[in-house]
């Protein structure tokens, strides 16, 4: 019983870590790869979650939806919608320097959040959408979790593989060059706008996918889920902690942050509740402090980006 319970919880954690790993990989393409400071992750996450929700949920009064499509259609739709939203945003905002882009994307995410909260006909406003299809949702609890985890793992591995390829290829080198010196990259014939947009859209699509997975897992999506604190900043902490520019780091960051986040709560939950309430704040304090310590002692993250790239041994010989 205890063991099964722990296993169940481990499954759950792994699913959540997978969801966040997708976000953090998406961010890694944008920030680690192309140096785009997207502080509106929550927005793309939300677009993905709601798109898949609308596509896969049963009909309901007074709002768009009721297409009851299979989950994979919903998820593909989520990626597409996030990418489509990212396109004009990227067109407009990618000209800005990184801090500006950050603030612009925060603003856009906030606007997306307000639209979701307020436009009843589209998203059922503050009540959210429930009864979303979850793949393998009809299986018994444990097997359903395990099967879902299987899907999530597949997605994370696939995403990792694709992104890793990109980073190690001339594409990655070109993006780092663009990040380093835009003017020179342009003079060397690189189409910066196009490349950035490419990275931004691809990263956003992954974020949208993550949102769809999240909605399916919970079978519901409500506006609280897209609070920037959990859907944007936590992801940033994951990436910075793990090591931006390094895909393993992005995933490792998701693992560590979520485990610490959850385990520290198990610890504080043991306290009597009059302390437990304060302990929540102490816990936030400790998480902040932990971040400081990491930045102090591993400012490049646990797995830093390899700044000087890959040179294979045969190159060395050829000289």
């Amino acid at each position, binding site marked *: 019983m205890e063991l099964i319970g722990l296993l169940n919880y481990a499954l759950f954690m792994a699913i959540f870590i997978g969801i966040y790993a997708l976000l953090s990989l998406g961010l890694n393409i944008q*920030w680690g790869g192309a140096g785009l*400071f997207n502080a509106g992750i929550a927005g793309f996450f939300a677009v993905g979650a709601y798109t898949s929700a609308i596509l896969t949920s049963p009909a309901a009064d007074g709002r768009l939806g009721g297409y009851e499509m299979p989950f994979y259609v919903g998820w593909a739709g989520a990626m597409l919608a996030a990418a489509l939203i990212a396109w004009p945003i990227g067109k*407009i*905002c990618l*000209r*800005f*320097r*990184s*801090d*500006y882009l*950050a*603030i*612009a994307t*925060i*603003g*856009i995410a*906030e*606007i997306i959040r*307000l639209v979701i*909260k*307020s436009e009843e006909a589209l998203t059922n406003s503050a009540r959210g959408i429930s009864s979303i299809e979850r793949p393998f949702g009809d299986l018994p609890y444990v097997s359903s979790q395990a099967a879902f985890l299987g899907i999530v793992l597949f997605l994370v591995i696939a995403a990792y593989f694709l992104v890793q390829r990109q980073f190690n290829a001339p594409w990655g080198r070109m993006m780092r060059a663009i990040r380093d010196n835009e003017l020179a990259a342009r003079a060397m014939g690189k189409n910066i706008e196009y490349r950035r947009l490419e990275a931004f859209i691809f990263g956003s699509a992954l974020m949208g996918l993550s949102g769809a997975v999240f909605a399916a897992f919970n079978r519901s999506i409500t506006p609280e889920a897209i609070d920037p604190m959990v859907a944007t*900043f936590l992801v*940033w*902490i994951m990436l*910075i902690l793990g090591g931006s520019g390094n895909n393993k780091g992005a995933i490792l960051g998701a693992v560590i942050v979520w485990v610490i986040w959850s385990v520290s709560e198990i610890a504080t939950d043991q306290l009597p509740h009059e302390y437990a309430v*304060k302990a929540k*704040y*102490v816990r*936030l*304090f400790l*998480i*902040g*402090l932990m*971040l*400081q310590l990491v*930045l*102090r002692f591993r*400012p490049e993250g646990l797995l830093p980006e390899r700044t000087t790239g890959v040179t294979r041994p045969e190159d060395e010989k050829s000289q």
Partner: protein
Amino acid sequence: MDFMELLNFYLMPGIVLGCIYALGAIGVTLIFSILRYAHLAHGDLATLGAFLALAIVSGFGVSPLAALPVAMIGTAVIAVFIDKAFYNHLRERPKIVTVMASLGIALMIRAVIQVVWGVDSESYVRGIVRPENYWGLRIRDREIYTIAFMIAVVVALQLFLGRSKWGKAMRAMSDNPDLALLSGIDNRKVIILTWLIAGGLCASAGVFLGLNTELKSMMGWHMLLPMFAATILGGVGRVDGAVLGGLIVGVAEELSVLVLPSEYKTATAFVILLLMLLVRPTGLLRGKVL
């Protein structure tokens, strides 16, 4: 709607709010241009200032205005301490690292406030204050203080930055820190000075916000984005720009309910900001194109 109504219920609140944003935005803009990062703990630092003043008000029974200078000094010192303890050693790193660190600091400050003062709303003075009526203009003392304080601060700061040696040193350091060092400017002093100014102003923003509304543990955090919008709107690195930006954001937020559904009020600041970035990314008063 007649003009007096527009003035009393839309413009005045917008201006007062704008002054508060401006006080915060000045600090943001200084840090942005001199130390070169977006300081995300600025809002929570303002909250801290507000609660420090609350502690003084309730501890010694003085008026909030009397507590203001003490709170400003206290917060300024804390800001310097935070910089020393947490940001200083990140100086050589990419700026984003410091941005992340400041986010962590925001969490830490907020947690301290929540542990010490709890999460309930508080206020400096219980009860309500009805406005005086000056020939139809309805305004409260505290609103006059807010506006007057902001004006005084801006004038003083402009003079300081433009005329004094240290003001110029701050600009030089924002421009080329290495060269500033070679010119004999002690960068550490400039940084301390920057934090003293930013921290003090930040506290004043918090106190005035608390004075005009309530004190809540999240009050500063919610002010953060409008402050950044104000900063960029006015042009990064420009004190006068921050003020202009703050006022515009404040007034626009209040006026927005006339044209937009009121649930979109929060979005006003961003919409202005995005338009600004599109049309003129250097801000209204030509700031640094960072």
